[in-house]
């Protein structure tokens, strides 16, 4: 695991990034496909100011705007009517691009696409997509889910992007991870891939393995990092939802069988094999924090926000690496690349960034994507801008958001219990 002392090694703009930046700004690179997937693992994306980032991704925003209208006409032709990609030069120009929503939002006169996509899922696949694709469904808790088509290269870009999250969580070569996620979900698959290419030893939980066997595996494989799911405390009372392997059940099994102490729950000497716990899902729920504090001797925990549509979006850091940082638990640094993440509010005809302390819609634009193109797509999440760029003491430059939640809170719990986080 990375230590506090070498956290600073991550806070850099890689020389390779400078080369890439120069190539883009000089016009040598005009197509996102010319950016090597490995570039998305560079920390520079999180170390440059927004103005600089925008200039770098602008050609690709334009590229996708143009592509979207042409290759996904059912979704974008009408919605982007009047938007001239070539006329976008500044962030203010970009803010005129409308927000895309899945379900109708009469308040803002936004028409959703769920019904059309449900009737014909193929409209979500760009017509120019030559490479084989895989689809991942999302948004099923509010109705029929809609697909996101991704190519192998899209996968490569996203898993490389996730590696930055692993770095900010302190993972590195020599670490041994066990994850209990459902690998039929995109998050579970990408997790496996990104960990693997990040250079850690990866162990996965077989579906038939319960909490006790997971603990035995942690011991047998000398695992020091656990990726697992969480449940809100209220869901524990619903037996069918609380079954399975999650943080609670792992703690429970550890408490009940003394031979499992020292793995996740500290032993009598206060020692614990697990150095870090990743908790996926919509947020780190209060119950999980309570478990970590009461039973796990405050084991560092952190999360990374992502969805079937876009990974990564934001992440918190390992608190033991950034003790002075604000970016702990549910305070998340935005992670741009391969997606552009914004928190916006309506202002006249535009959707502009919120001010510090304000809550707004979380939107993302997949500027480096072969598959389903998202242009300022708002899946229904809201967030509050906690800190502006450069303000977090941890040293990462991107803004910090907090309080990410679904506009519909009922949907939030359903997602936490039944969504991609469900183990």
């Amino acid at each position, binding site marked *: 695991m990375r230590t506090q002392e070498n956290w600073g090694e991550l806070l850099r703009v890689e020389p390779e990034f400078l080369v890439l930046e120069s190539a883009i700004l000089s016009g040598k690179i005009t197509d996102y496909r010319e950016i090597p997937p490995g570039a998305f693992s560079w920390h520079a994306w999180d170390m440059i100011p927004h103005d600089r980032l925008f200039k770098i991704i602008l050609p690709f925003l334009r590229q996708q705007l143009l592509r979207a209208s042409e290759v996904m006409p059912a979704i974008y032709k009408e919605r982007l009517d009047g938007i001239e990609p070539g006329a976008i030069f500044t962030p203010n120009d970009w803010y005129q691009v409308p927000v895309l929503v899945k379900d109708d939002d009469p308040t803002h006169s936004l028409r959703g696409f769920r019904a059309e996509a449900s009737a014909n899922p193929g409209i979500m696949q760009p017509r120019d997509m030559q490479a084989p694709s895989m689809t991942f469904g999302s948004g099923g808790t509010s109705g029929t889910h809609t697909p996101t088509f991704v190519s192998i290269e899209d996968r490569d870009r996203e898993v490389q992007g996730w590696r930055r999250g692993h770095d900010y969580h302190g993972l590195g070569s020599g670490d041994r991870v066990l994850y209990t996620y459902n690998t039929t979900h995109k998050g579970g698959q990408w997790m496996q891939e990104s960990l693997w290419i990040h250079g850690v030893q990866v162990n996965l939980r077989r579906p038939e393995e319960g909490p006790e066997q997971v603990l035995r595996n942690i011991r047998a494989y000398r695992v020091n990092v656990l990726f697992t799911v969480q449940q809100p405390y209220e869901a*524990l*009372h619903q*037996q069918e939802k609380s079954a399975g392997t999650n943080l*609670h059940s792992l*703690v*429970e*099994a*550890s*408490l*009940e*069988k*003394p031979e499992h102490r020292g793995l996740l729950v500290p032993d009598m000497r206060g020692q614990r094999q697990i150095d870090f716990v990743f908790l996926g899902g919509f947020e780190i729920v209060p119950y999980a924090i309570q*478990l970590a504090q009461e*039973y796990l001797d405050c084991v560092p925990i952190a999360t990374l926000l992502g969805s079937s549509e876009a990974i990564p979006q934001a992440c918190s850091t390992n608190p033991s690496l950034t003790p002075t940082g604000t970016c702990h638990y549910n305070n998340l640094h935005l992670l741009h690349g391969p997606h552009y993440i914004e928190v916006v509010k309506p202002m006249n005809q535009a959707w502009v960034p919120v001010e510090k302390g304000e809550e707004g819609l979380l939107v993302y634009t997949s500027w480096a994507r072969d598959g389903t193109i998202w242009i300022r797509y708002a899946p229904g999440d809201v967030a509050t801008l906690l800190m502006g760029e450069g303000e977090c003491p941890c040293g990462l430059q991107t803004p910090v958001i907090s309080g990410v939640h679904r506009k519909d809170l009922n949907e939030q719990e359903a997602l936490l219990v039944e969504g991609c986080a469900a183990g």
Partner: protein
Amino acid sequence: MRAAPLDKPMDVECPLIIQGRETLPNPFPGKSIFYYDYTYPIAQAGPLDIAQAIGATRQADRQTWSERRTQLHAAADAFSYGEKLLEHTIRITGAPRCVVASLLEDIPEWLCSVPKMLEARLNHTIGALPAQVVGENAVKHYAPLSGFCYAVTPGNDPRSTALVAANACALGLPFILAASPLDAVAPLVVRALIAAGFDPRFCQLIYFRRDSDAARTHFHLVDAASAVWTFGPDESVDRTLRYEEKTDTRVVDHFEGKRVLRHNSGNCAAISIGPVSQRMRTTLWKALDFPLGCTATKTLLSVDAPPQTTQDLSEWFASKVVGDPLDPKTEIGYTHPHNIDLLEGMLEKCRLYGTVYGGERLNPYQSRPALIHLHEEYPDLLRQEIPAHVLTLLHSQDVPEALAAINRHTGAEPRLAVSLLGVPEEHRREAIATLRTHAVLVDRPTSEVTPSCHEGNDYLDLLTEGRLVREL
């Protein structure tokens, strides 16, 4: 006298005590059916509390037999309660102050008497294990059962925890006790045990709301335990604590493979010879004053009683002071309305079979004590145990007839106890040989519990692994 009024009476609450740590997580309110504005907090054990308790028992230091019996005596000395606890128990049980105080005084007595009774039997040791000489060169030694005991106590008797704890502690079996939400005495017993030196992991106390969600918690504990201690009729224990319906066709028997301790007898009776003397009445009243308890005498078979016996007994009953149980002068407190309804219904039917004295309902929670003098045997009454102040009187020609009547109206489970009051030696032997009962008390009330052997349960056998050792 162990009641110790505190300068600052502690508020009554029902905390979890796990590994010696007291917590009150997610408390739910306990209420009294008799005092509508009285509430107190009861901890709700969550899944991790249960897991901690289970894990703790698995690491508990069982100590030696010698250490445990010394510590039980120390726990008896350490046990104390304050005025608030006394009043709380009155409010919850409805029993009057004098009765509740007497019950609470039994607790240290039981904590001491269990090791004493066992010492008398375990007259040998093998290493650190207690043993009993059973024959020439033959010794039976008793190793504690592996695992732990999970006990579910009822709320009708504040001594339940002491009964479980005294035996489990003496015999070296760690326990997790799920106390009734009505029982606020349990924490005091557990605290006394820990103060006396028992490993805090040995004696764990939990509470949880006994509603539809409780089944999962309960069955998890049953499955983890090696012994299950239950109270109550077999029918309700099996329905609520033993069997779990998984599907329409699949039922799981969670008791399979476990040592199961059942306490399902009751309906105590007494036989008296001649006039019911003052001494007999004093003895009888001790067995009548707490009708909620399984040890209450319900039937008196009177042999060779003079004609005015019924009149004397009815006047004696009528003299009992009925009132607010908190009033020190009260002898008859509150009873659950359902039990009074039951009594009223039975009294109505009994008028066809005998004479009813007293029994008038005074309010939803009280009635005057009832004496039913049966002129002929009425099986429905003689076989039923009504948890209210009622005594059925039946005259018998002789002792054999009285014994036959008692046995005739005993169900599948033997009675908990029968008192022999003024019964001469020659009839006592016959009674002991023929009565279908777990205990025979000679000139003692049926309410005198032998805590090391209650309701036919020999805890020495039930809570240990006995092994016979023969040497040349």
